């Protein structure tokens, strides 16, 4: 190795060493949230503000002053304190919040959603609609009109009249599709109706569905659920939890499964396990109960109840 190589090596070595010793405190202080003020020869603690909005590219105002960068960004070397942060974009509502920045910490506002100022509404149907229902798969929409029950695609295209039924009750509380997708129930505080969606696609308009009022209740109906088999409805009316076996032939079977001490509260139906959860307070203390309505148990229960009915009938 000649002398020039040795000189080059020494220069490279000492330059690298100097570079390391210079850069290390700068990078470390930056990472640890310290800011070196070279003019005042002072070091002070800072925090970071991380902003991300949807849509991106929104302007940022910190304490009323426009920040040079747009979202997403991180604003570094902020002294600890509370900052008024505004995120603005033309055509969207302004997002505004007071954000606290703490030393050596990151304050994140990364889920800012800017809503457009001009909301666009699409008309799905021209018909005068009293009520409507969208199943969970969101593929179709059912709407109840004065001229009957209709179904169309979710965007309103391809409408078809399912049934001429038009005596829709007032104050419908909820609508629920059966697990097999072939029936739909709706109810208000006095009654339960079922729409049988059993007509073939090829059937002529108006013959595809049938609407039937399956129950008129003297007690106020609180909630109604489909049993997983789609042939039974569990409903809570007054203090009772009842089951209704549906079917067009031979009338309706109604059985009271549970009589609560008061109106059951906090109803939740676990459709996967066919269990009804509710609160009751038989001794003045509210407790959580579960009513197991699984197929096996349910079948046996119905059998037992039927036998009891038969005995009573025979005795009469």
């Amino acid at each position, binding site marked *: 190795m000649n002398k020039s190589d040795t000189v080059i*090596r020494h220069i490279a070595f000492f330059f690298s060493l100097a570079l390391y010793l210079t850069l*290390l405190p700068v990078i470390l202080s930056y990472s*640890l949230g310290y800011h070196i003020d070279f003019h005042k020869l002072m070091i002070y603690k800072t925090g*970071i503000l991380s902003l991300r909005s949807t849509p991106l590219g929104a302007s940022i105002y910190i304490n009323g002053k426009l920040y040079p960068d747009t979202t997403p960004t*991180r604003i570094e070397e902020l002294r600890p304190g509370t900052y008024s942060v505004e995120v603005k974009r033309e055509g969207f509502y302004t997002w505004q919040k007071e954000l606290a920045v703490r030393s050596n910490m*990151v304050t994140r506002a990364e889920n800012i959603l800017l809503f457009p100022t001009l909301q666009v509404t699409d008309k799905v149907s021209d018909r005068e609609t009293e009520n409507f229902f969208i199943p969970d798969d969101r593929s179709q929409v059912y709407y109840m009109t004065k001229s009957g029950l209709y179904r169309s695609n979710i965007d309103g295209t391809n409408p078809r009249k399912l049934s001429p039924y038009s005596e829709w009750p007032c104050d419908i509380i909820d609508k629920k599709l059966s697990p097999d997708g072939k029936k739909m129930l709706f109810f208000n505080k006095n009654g339960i109706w079922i729409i049988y969606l059993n007509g073939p696609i090829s059937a002529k308009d108006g013959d595809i569905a049938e609407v039937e009022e399956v129950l008129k209740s003297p007690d106020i109906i609180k909630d109604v659920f489909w049993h997983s088999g789609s042939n039974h409805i569990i409903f809570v009316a007054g203090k009772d939890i009842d089951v209704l076996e549906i079917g067009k032939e031979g009338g309706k079977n109604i059985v009271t499964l549970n009589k609560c001490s008061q109106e059951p509260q906090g109803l939740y139906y676990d459709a996967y396990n066919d269990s009804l959860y509710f609160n009751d307070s038989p001794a003045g203390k509210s407790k959580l109960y579960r009513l197991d309505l699984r197929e096996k148990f349910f079948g046996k229960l119905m059998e037992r109840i039927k036998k009891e009915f038969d005995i009573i009938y025979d005795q009469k």
Partner: protein
Amino acid sequence: MTRNEKLRRFFEIVPGFMTWSTILGLIILSVFRPLWVAVFIICFDLYWVIRVGYFTTLLVFAYRRLNMEKKTDWLKKCKSAAGDGVLNYESIYHAILFPAYKEGPDILAASINALIGSNYDKKKMIVALTIEGRAGDDCWENAKELKRRFKDTFFEFIITRHPDGLKGEAKTKGANATWGAMVIREFVDAKRIDHEHVVMSCFDADTCADKEYFACLTYHYITNTKRSRSSYQPIPVYNNNIWYARSIARVIELGSSFMQMVETMRLEKFVTFSSHSMSFKTLVDVGYWPVDMISDDSVIYWKCFLHFNGDYSVIPMYVTVSLDIATEKAIIPTIIKQYKQKRRWAWGVENFPYLMMGFMNNRNIPLFKKIRRGFHLFESHYTWAVWAIIVTFIAPLPLIFGGGIFRQTTMGYSLPSVAAALFRITTITLLICMLMSIKLLPPRPKDVKRQKKLVMFTQWILAPLLAAFVGSTPAIDAQTRLMLGKYMHFHVTEKIRHGVTTN
């Protein structure tokens, strides 16, 4: 166990212990003190990036030097060399030793043909082929055939068979080379040639020396007044089968070549590696290569260093020797082969206890020199074992184990972006390596498609991935084995050229 054995064992444990302490310590601290580890990672990343930048600078200058010296007419310089202590080049003999195991005649013939093609008087060359006895009769017959072919070309063509299982020997290349060197000594003594006038080159069986190698070596030897206190190190390039090797293997071996070029610029740390040359007198004086150590190429340097009380150096020669890339036809076997080869190189960590014991028994080497060389040797193996693990696997741990609270701190938030920004700088090194690898390529064989040159360029994108997975693991493996006293045996790398496989 004697006191010396206990001490040796202690020094065997130190590198592995330090490596594992660092890795496990950082993992544990990531759980309990993520901030400390994050600070350490930034310090280490910056150190590593600047170190890479420093090495790249040295690499560029070494490459420039290699290019400049390519144009030198070394033989002319030998003829015109004069002055106090300068030897007459015509009085110099070259003993070229090829310790071989099962390498086939095609591999050895190519290496011998490279000698024939050299720009130097072949009648000044003593070629010795020492075949391992355990390699079998076929290998011995091949050696005899090679002798028949080449005996009239050189001053002498010696073939010898190294008996297996000699007392005190392990199955190492050093044992075979020592046997060959002793046979050469018999010949040299019989011819009454002064040992100082013989330059010994110990080559791997696949080493093809550049045509200027011996002229360049002779010039450095005759003009060096401390010729017997120096080894002479060429730059190893892996060109023999580069057009046929797998990309993975090419990137790893080119990386080794570049590292060796960098080392030529760091004289005070320079140690012999792979094929190199030295005075035959020195070799005889120090008692040849150790016969029970695997890393014969570097340990001979330390043996000389200790023998001459620290007054021993390595002279870099900007001339190349070409070797085979350890490759296979499929990717996984190539990775395994590369891994085993790198582990064998990493087994050079056995030099650390050897050197430490040597230092303890030698009072003539200045303490500062002992500390400096000892530290350099330890640091090189330690860094090799930990760098890729820290950079790749430890770096994300503070964020993983530090939890939400750490991620809410400015350090937790900045760590990934700071580390990424730092390592983005190293792409400059990658670009330089890409360009240099193209420049160092031998001519494309006719049966290789033109597009392959593009692959030679783009293959470097594999570098970060390879660094992560095979950067440190062979070194950890070797150090752990040494720490646990599970000593390695010499593993001969199988050579594969175009369509030919030999051991």
